[in-house]
């Protein structure tokens, strides 16, 4: 076996499928996007090279700014609302045990199982100002119940709530798995030392969950940037451009406005932003991971000593 793995041809044949996939499904399209980003291609017929013209327009495009601002809102919403809630829910679930634990784990994950199209239409009906569930609840409590949830000022928050709710189960499941992997010995030790639930959560669960949190936060930021399908189905960026997201805007420009070149320029900027976000997040977590590892060893040593 060892001999086999040291054979370079074998290694190549094993790496090749992944490499080919990366080259033709990721790298080549990106290169083509960069190329088309310098053209005024409409998607059909001939085109001209126009240099940086698309990028100049893009920098002054107010819609792109709105789209990026909305992505930022969504990322913050994920990090500061969805993930703390998901983490706490996961910790509570872990303590619940028995049938209740399985039941609620399923319930919280249900939104993730339902198709995005169904989710979008479900919420469209919930938010509908004339016959929607939300306004009817307000009416039942004696309110007027004529709130237009998708008005220009509030639409983005209405959309954020859907997205945060939709992704909640996924985040929770990853945290839950992470918590399940924590050595129960640590909790026993803490209990013997007289630590209460809150202290146990803050001093044991949270620190040991850092790698999981890191992965989850990175994924949340990337998915906030990449958000497309729910918004496309829910509001399609409207009213006006108030709920526009970059991917949806890219699609509109490239395929509806016949500005394929411009759409590709958006794509290139988009890739750069996503890469930057990933690099920055990795940098932020890098140092902490080392200190965290040291702490982890200390905690383990402590646990063993006890």
């Amino acid at each position: 076996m060892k001999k086999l793995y040291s054979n370079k041809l074998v290694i190549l044949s094993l790496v090749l499928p992944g490499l080919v996939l990366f080259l033709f499904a990721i790298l080549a399209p990106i290169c083509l996007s960069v190329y088309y980003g310098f053209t005024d291609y409409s998607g059909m017929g001939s085109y001209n090279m126009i240099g940086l013209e698309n990028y100049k327009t893009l920098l002054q495009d107010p819609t792109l700014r709105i789209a990026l601002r909305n992505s930022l809102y969504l990322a913050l919403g994920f990090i500061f609302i969805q993930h703390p809630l998901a983490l706490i829910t996961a910790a509570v679930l872990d303590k619940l045990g028995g049938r209740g634990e399985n039941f609620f784990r399923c319930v919280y994950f249900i939104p993730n199982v339902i198709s995005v199209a169904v989710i979008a239409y479900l919420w469209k009906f919930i938010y509908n100002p004339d016959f929607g569930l939300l306004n009817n609840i307000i009416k039942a409590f004696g309110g007027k119940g004529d709130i237009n949830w998708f008005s220009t000022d509030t639409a983005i928050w209405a959309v954020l709530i859907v997205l945060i709710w939709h992704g909640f189960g996924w985040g929770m499941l990853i945290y839950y798995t992470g918590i399940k992997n924590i050595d129960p010995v640590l909790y026993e030790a803490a209990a013997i030392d007289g630590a209460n639930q809150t202290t146990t959560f803050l001093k044991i669960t949270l620190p040991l969950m850092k790698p999981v949190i890191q992965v989850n936060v990175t994924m949340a930021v990337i998915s906030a940037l990449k958000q497309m399908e729910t918004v496309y189905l829910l509001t399609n960026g409207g009213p006006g451009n108030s709920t526009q997201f970059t991917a949806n805007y890219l699609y509109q420009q490239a395929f509806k406005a016949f500005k394929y070149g411009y759409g590709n320029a958006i794509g290139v900027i988009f890739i750069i932003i996503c890469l930057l976000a990933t690099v920055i997040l990795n940098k932020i977590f890098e140092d902490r991971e080392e200190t965290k590892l040291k702490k982890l060893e200390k905690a383990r040593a402590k646990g063993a000593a006890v």
Partner: protein
Amino acid sequence: MWRQKEDSSSASDDGKVTLKVFSNLPDRKNGQGLVEQTIIDEYMKENPDVNIEVEALDEEAYKTKFKAYSMEGMPDVVSIWGQPAFLDEVVEAGVLAELNSDDYADYGFVEGSLNGYTYDGKLYGLPRNTDIGVFYYNQKMFEDNGWKVPETYDELLALAEDIKAEGIIPVAMDGGDGWPLACYLADVLYKLVGSDYSQIVSDAIESGDFSAPEIKEATQLMKDAADAGLFQNGYDSQDYATSQNLFTNGQAAMWYMGSWETSMATNEDIDESIRTNIRVFTMPTVEGGKAAATDISAWNGGGYAVSANSEVKEEAIKFLNYMYQPEKLSKYGWENGVGLSAQDQSEYMTGDETELQKQIVDLLANSTDLSGNPINDCGPSAFKTSIESEIQSVTNGTSSIDDFLSTIGASCK
């Protein structure tokens, strides 16, 4: 996304011609799609050596795939839209075959209906429908409450007040899509300027300058309507089906839409008391406006064309002409209540038509002038995308009329 292929297995048999039809009508069992499929089946029966393969996608997916096909080779017969927003880019890319306009002298095309399909004096396609922008209204609801069909724009806004007082939505509007609002704006503008409409719109699009006082006034009139609560709460985020449901459920007294929804009158999913009471009126006249009540907002939207690079171009044109024989598309369309064709349909009237159908026919027969394409379809597709998004912001008051006009102007350049 739904595809249908007809007998693709035998396509390669010797001597057999395979025609590929790419259609924007995915529902092959109802309405326009059924008409198209019926004609295709008949053609194959009459021409056993011809096999027709259909690929059908709904509009948005259709337009996206159309673009992909334009790079790798178009199917032989395709659905197109006779509007600059669609046709200009497509014809400039050279994907459509030129048709001989002399061939169609006897086809009974309504005057002017081929204009949208003509580019630089050459004919590139044929129109399938005549569309009219109308207010569908619930006649029974109007009678029960003593409301009258408005004759002026001011009466329309006053009527909105009366209807709202009854707790009913005056007009259900599909504002989430943007294009019905643009049709509304075009309708008002047309009522203001009459037959100068096309000139004013094309001048504005050509120069990217929408500051003409008429356009400003029309935008103001549309905004006035929105401010007066003519449309439902949250109209700017609601889609086609939701707005239609408000009307067909009786929650709204009117619905602003095109005449292609005439088949509502026979749709059994709609409660009988509502479906049999649906009637129409067109945009009322505007004070000081040049258009008369019988000058109506109408245009020829969808149609068909033949691919320039088709290997069986002759057969494709033969099939196209077969479809457009007056007793095919027009007659079957009429019998299925799918709205008006772009050809003379008067001989197919049986007297069994629904009231709604008769009313639409009368509207067109009594019309003294037709507007032509709605404003959003008159410019390049970048303009179309821009106006359909910005129009939501101007009607709901997020952006000013001047900002709206300058933004859509900028998208023309």
